[in-house]
């Protein structure tokens, strides 16, 4: 459940985050600081604030919640779909920021070279910018995955605690502690620590020696 959520959110965010990060890295628009600030908001807001607003937006009586209910026949609140959307918003900066930095690092020079060789902007993005920013993609994917894995507040607010539907590991641990089942809590917590460490370790290992190309 938790892994499926993290994987899905990571995939979605790479698709959404790429054009956003690309735009942020290259635009000269005056809107850029505002968009950057909005993108970074989930980093600083308490999860409860985000969760509260999402809960209101997902409510079947709100426009978004009602539309979702009409189309899918399910409510967004307290459902897996709602969790995915909430997590996408919550983890957005962890995708966008590494990608934006990677694209900025690639710079204009290789793209101009590609254009002078007859590559259209989309072609140049796919054949030059993306491969050169591959480390950025790796960082973004790993950080997003790990962060989604460990989130708690937003999930609790939006998803509640429904076994098989919205009960992720962090919530399960919370419940185990509440019911004073420390043994089970230890097992789950240890798994999460080990998993997160492994992922981050792999990331830094991969980024380490090659960083100063």
């Amino acid at each position, binding site marked *: 459940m938790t892994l499926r959520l993290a994987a899905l959110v990571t995939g979605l965010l790479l698709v959404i985050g790429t054009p956003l990060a690309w735009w942020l890295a290259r635009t000269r628009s005056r809107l850029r600081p505002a968009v950057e600030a909005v993108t970074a908001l989930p980093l600083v807001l308490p999860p409860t604030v985000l969760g509260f607003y999402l809960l209101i937006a997902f409510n079947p009586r709100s426009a978004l919640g009602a539309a979702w209910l009409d189309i899918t026949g399910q409510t967004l609140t307290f459902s897996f779909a709602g969790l995915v959307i909430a997590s996408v918003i919550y983890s957005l900066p962890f995708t966008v920021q590494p990608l934006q930095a990677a694209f900025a690092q690639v710079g204009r020079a290789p793209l101009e070279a590609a254009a*002078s060789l007859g590559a259209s*902007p989309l072609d140049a993005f796919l054949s030059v910018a993306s491969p050169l920013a591959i480390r950025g993609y790796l960082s973004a994917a790993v950080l997003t995955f790990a962060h989604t894995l460990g989130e708690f507040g937003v999930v609790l607010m939006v998803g509640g605690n429904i076994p098989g539907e919205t009960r992720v590991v962090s919530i399960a641990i919370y419940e185990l502690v509440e019911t004073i089942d420390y043994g089970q809590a230890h097992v789950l917590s240890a798994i999460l620590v080990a998993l997160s460490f492994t992922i981050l370790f792999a990331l830094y290992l991969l980024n380490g020696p090659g960083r100063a190309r």
Partner: protein
Amino acid sequence: MKLDLDLRLERPGFAFHAQHQGTLSGLTAIFGPSGSGKTTLLRLIAGFERGAGEIGLGPHRWQQGRHFVPPHRRRIATVFQEARLFQHLDVAGNLAYAARRAGTAHNVASLADRFGVTQLMGRRVAGLSGGEAQRVSLVRALLTDPVLILMDEPLSALDGAARAGILSIIEDLRDEGPAPILYVTHSRSEVARLADRVMLVASGAIRSEGPASAILPQILQTERDELSVMTVTHTGVEADGLCVLAYPGGRLLVPDFAGQRGRPTRIAIHARDVLLARGDAADWSGRLSALNAIPARVFAIEVRGASARVTLDCAGTQIVARITARSAGALGLASGVDCLALIKSVALLED
């Protein structure tokens, strides 16, 4: 092909307005001090910057009113100061990148062979020397089958030996290349060595444009001294070691000459190294230490104070001599008078 150029670009603290109409062929050097707008001009032509106005070459209209052809559809190849090879591809991959998009895959092997990059094909880009990388980037640019080649100081990041190698490739491209070349530089020696024509750029505008022989003296003039430019061909070495430099009116003999054998080369002659004499060369034979006494006709004399600037015509080449006004009077020099120019030394053009 005819170039129509009328482009304006406004940036904070910088205004650029380039206007020129003329035929492009061979290599046109765009020369000017740094910050004058040379690179901006190149970027406007390539379409990397979008200015107002129009630009076209022959049948190609790249910009006119609202019509703007994006860089990747202009078929303009740009060779940058740094080679800008793609780091994630090897040398063969970089060449294939251009060839695949231009449909010139069948040319890769022959071009690679011609410019000596065949043995580099499997190499990683990061492991190439500066000269090797620039060589690959030149081949890559040619593979785009361009209608115009832009070069932005392609030698400035290279050291001596690598520079010489790329220089002779650029000379080949100038003489037998597929497309006219616009070549940005602030090096006078590169202009002297490479340019068929010169475009002078200063403070955001094209100041003048013309054949290199007409523009070079302007570039080479300094406050202290003045240089004349003569095109010679190093044809051989005499038994006593003197090098023979042929020019349309005859030949010059110089003790050592670093220019390439058999290729027309421009040399500089300092105005203070030219002495003037009357009479035939035969009269002076055996009575003068200067080896080079060449026939000349006075074209014009400007007297300023005690010194005189004498412009001579030596078989079609203009040479300037600086002598004293008194000597000019004593020799009876006037426009149209025949005399001898005694040339003490010549130099390859250097910065």
